[in-house]
């Protein structure tokens, strides 16, 4: 491959990074949900160290992208917000990790 086209493909690879996941807070949220089948808001907040407001706003962006599913429910009288990764979220997360691995190793 010619040097110019190699450089172009590297730049293209950087440009193709999923920016929704690439943001550190959202990446942490996605990582927690990748290990968990489902987790509530409090658990994700504790594991990521994000504040309530911060988590809430990043959660909305991930939900808009279709990467996570947010379900509100009651356990007894206590409201609970349950989060889970969607199948497209799981695919996007795995693709992101693979892409980053390749970029760092190349």
């Amino acid at each position, binding site marked *: 491959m010619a040097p110019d086209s190699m450089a172009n493909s590297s730049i293209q690879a950087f440009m193709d990074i999923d920016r929704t996941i690439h943001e550190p807070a959202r*990446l*942490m949220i996605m*990582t*927690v949900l*990748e*290990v*968990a*089948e*489902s*987790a*509530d*808001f*409090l*658990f*994700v*907040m*504790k*594991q*990521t*160290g994000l504040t*309530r407001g911060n*988590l*809430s706003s990043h*959660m*909305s962006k991930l939900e808009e992208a279709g990467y996570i599913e*947010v379900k*509100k429910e009651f*356990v*007894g009288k*206590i*409201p*609970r*917000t*349950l989060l889970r990764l969607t199948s497209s979220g799981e695919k996007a997360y795995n693709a992101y*990790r693979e892409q980053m691995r390749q970029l760092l190793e190349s």
Partner: protein
Amino acid sequence: MSESPTLNEIERRVLQSVYQDGLVEVFAGLFLIVFGTIFQANAKLSGFSVLLIFAIYPVLERIKQRWIYPRSGYVNIRQDPKEIRGIPIVGGLFVLGLIAILFLTIQLRGVVAGRALFLDYLMPPIVGILMAIGPWWMAKERYIRRGYIWAALFVLLGFAFPIFHVRGGYEAVGLSCTLVGAAMLVTGMTIFVNFVRQNPVQEGDHGA
């Protein structure tokens, strides 16, 4: 929390979180004490204590809902399909191995001497190794390092009783289960009390 945890650290913490409250050890300890005590008294009856396993899960879940989820949040860990398939395979292989060793010792030494050799000298270490699988898995796959201590204790006692002629086969198995169970129960209770003290209940909606 460290300033910038790696993704692997986050994954590890999520996996550890299920065991951080010590409740699994409390219930495993209780089960082992009951099982071990019955096994020493009457090995045939000990099978009934397995029924306890079915009672444990709903009680454990209720206690978690009351004491743990309001403090650390709710999580349901994704099960690795390979792990799920592996459990019955490993368990089945061990039971088959146990039967094969019993059969071989009886064939080689005759019914009475073979049975005695198997029960007094071979069964305790084999059961010790079998019992060590659970805590070893907890240590290796869920990063709860104290699982290695429980696994080592099971194996150590399984070999020590027959070597030092402390007890007969059934009693050795029963006693080692009771001893490890008691150690698990005390450790689990200590971890649980500390967890509840260090993690206050988060008031209000656990959501956005």
